[in-house]
């Protein structure tokens, strides 16, 4: 199995926020969503979602509440807050600026 690329540092928070922007999800759901949408290219060490989620909760960018899943299990669902949506915008624009800058450097070379 070829080694998958590590996630760029600092992008995990952005990915989580973006994922939650579509719909509220539990932790497992977030991991699954990231994996699927990236065609299995981006696999985070799944557990590292949880420290990241604590960070986002603390910042007030996401909210959490316990709900029943479709299979009637108890799970903690995370929802994006308005502050989180704003933060996502900030991070996205910063990220795009960086990617554009990297792209320009690579093209020139």
């Amino acid at each position: 199995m070829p080694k998958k690329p590590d996630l760029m540092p600092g992008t995990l928070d952005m990915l989580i926020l973006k994922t939650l922007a579509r719909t509220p999800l539990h932790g497992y759901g977030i991991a699954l969503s990231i994996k699927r949408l990236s065609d299995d290219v981006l696999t985070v060490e799944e557990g590292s979602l949880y420290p990241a989620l604590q960070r986002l909760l603390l910042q007030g960018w996401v909210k959490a509440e316990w709900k029943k899943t479709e299979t009637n299990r108890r799970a903690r669902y995370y929802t994006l807050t308005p502050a989180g949506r704003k933060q996502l915008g900030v991070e996205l624009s910063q990220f795009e600026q960086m990617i554009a800058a990297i792209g320009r450097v690579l093209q020139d070379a």
Partner: protein
Amino acid sequence: MNSINIFFKKLGLLFRRENFNNELAEEMAFHQEQTEQELQAEGMTPDAARHAARRQFGNAIRLKEQSHETIGFWFEGTLQDFLFALRQLRKNPGFAVTAVLTLALGIGASVAIFAFVDAALLRPLPYPNPNRLVGLFSSIPLGPKYNISYPDYLDWKNQNHVFRSLEAYDTWDFMLKTPTGAQLAQGVQVSDGFFRTLGIAPVLGRDFLSGEAEAATPHTVLVSYAAWQKRFGGRPDVLGQTVTLDGVANTIIGVLPKDFHFAPAGGANFWGLLDPSGPCEKRRICHNLFGIARLKNGISVPAADFEMKEIAARLEKQYPDTNRGQGAVVMSLTEVIVGDIRPILLVLLSGAGLLLLIACVNVANLLLTRAESRKREIAVRGALGASRGRLIRQFVTEGLLLVGIGSGLGVAWAYGAMRLLLRLVPADMLARMPYLQGLGLNLHGLAFVCAISLLAGALFALTPMLRMSLRDIRAGLTEGGRNSAGTVWRHFGAHLVVVELAVAVVLLAGAGLLGKSLYRLLHVEVGFQPDHLAVLSIGAPDSGYSGDAQQIALEQEIMDRIGSLPGVKSVGITSYLPVSGYGPFMDFVVKGRPNHGEHYEVTRRQISVSYFTTLGAQLLRGRNFTESDDALKHQVAIINQAMARKYFGDEDPIGKQIAYSGSSSQSLRRWKSSE
């Protein structure tokens, strides 16, 4: 705004930490179960699916730790480390007690000595811009730090261009009239600008006025704060009160500040003015004053010294009779006041520093040994997911904890040591070191404690850290520990022992030499038997004891009364104590010897017939004084061996006649030679 929100959220979580843990564990477990189910659905065996799910999830313990760190306060981890370090120390009481006591000893000694250094060397002079103050002395053939005469002082004051002001002072023992009888009290007589030169203003009343001494006003006097409190109850109506000093009425015009002290004055209570018309002040030969001065801006001490030496040379030409061989010496006031004590304190501080170094090396060695035995523990913690940073933090905490306890005990012991050391200083010496009054743990001392604690803490944190390279952590699991790194660090321990031994040898040699010096000092041959001698200073007011006859009667009465006390074998009287270095010096000429301007200078004591017997001193040649000597036509004297050698050489001094110059009587004396 957001940070305040975060703070309150953290605070909220702090109180429902258990809830937080349970919820986190539940959702993590849920996540793993979901993964497991999915993998099983893909056809994995349940066992394989569980393992795969765990692998995919990552180190759950470490992730929980990370979550905690995210939502916890920074000090929570530190507190945890701290409690763990405490448990570690409790589990090894032998190690803990040894290390802490060693450190306390080293730190305590350093802090105690530092307090003295701080008091004596770092802030000895409680005056504004103390480094611009200098002391002035007259240098004579006998030595460089002798008194100045009043006429010389006036010439120095008027002719110099280097001082903003130059003033003079003289210690002054006098009889203070009190309701319960006369008391011997200490004071200082100063020229009128003395306090303005120091930069000190009275807290109550006024300073001396310029020209006050010359004016025909009543005598005025300033009192020290201590005397104001003790003798006058701290009442403001002390101003204008009259005190009788040496039979002369003096009006109190001011009270000096509480923290004012002037080391050369000792515990002076009264500060009066020098009397320009006094019997000594009128004569250039009579040296009774010390000078202090404030340098002009931009003038250095050596430059002032140079100019004053030039002025002294000019005066020497102008007044060859009185000033021959006399120069001027200018030195910083700090040097005058603490010059003698500085080397002692620096030696003590170095000694204490070396002791601290030994203590630190000892404890570092103990830590190394312990790190060796903790290798497995560290390896296991590393394997269980403790990050290297976290392990290092643990060591730092343990080191700081050791130093913290050591410093605490050390400071307590330093406090006791300071009291003890102060008590070891004789009272009259302490009076001349008033800067030691403020001795104690001040900000300087605490900063010093913090500095050495941090250094020691860094050392102790570093020692086991170096020992625990990452490779070691892995090697530690195999319990072997006999890899090459182990040998290197064992050697490091051996090097530490070498350093320690070297320092200990230096310290011991130094202590031995000091001890030997002290022994020699105590056994210097002084020419008399200093044991079983008691000293009593007696003063008598001029009123009532002004005539020779009255003074002789008083002396006789004192000697008779003391001599009749039980246990007193003999009593003698002297104008100045032996080996004290004090005493008036005078010029003399040898009768019948041609004088080509040679300058013979000696110090003189006036003694009673019984003086040498009481001291237990032996005459080398000649005879002792007798009671009938007073009736002789000329006076007689006894000289010491040094004077006989210096001024009479191979001649036999006995029976030679000399005359003191500069005195009108020119009395002749016969000489005998004693030790």
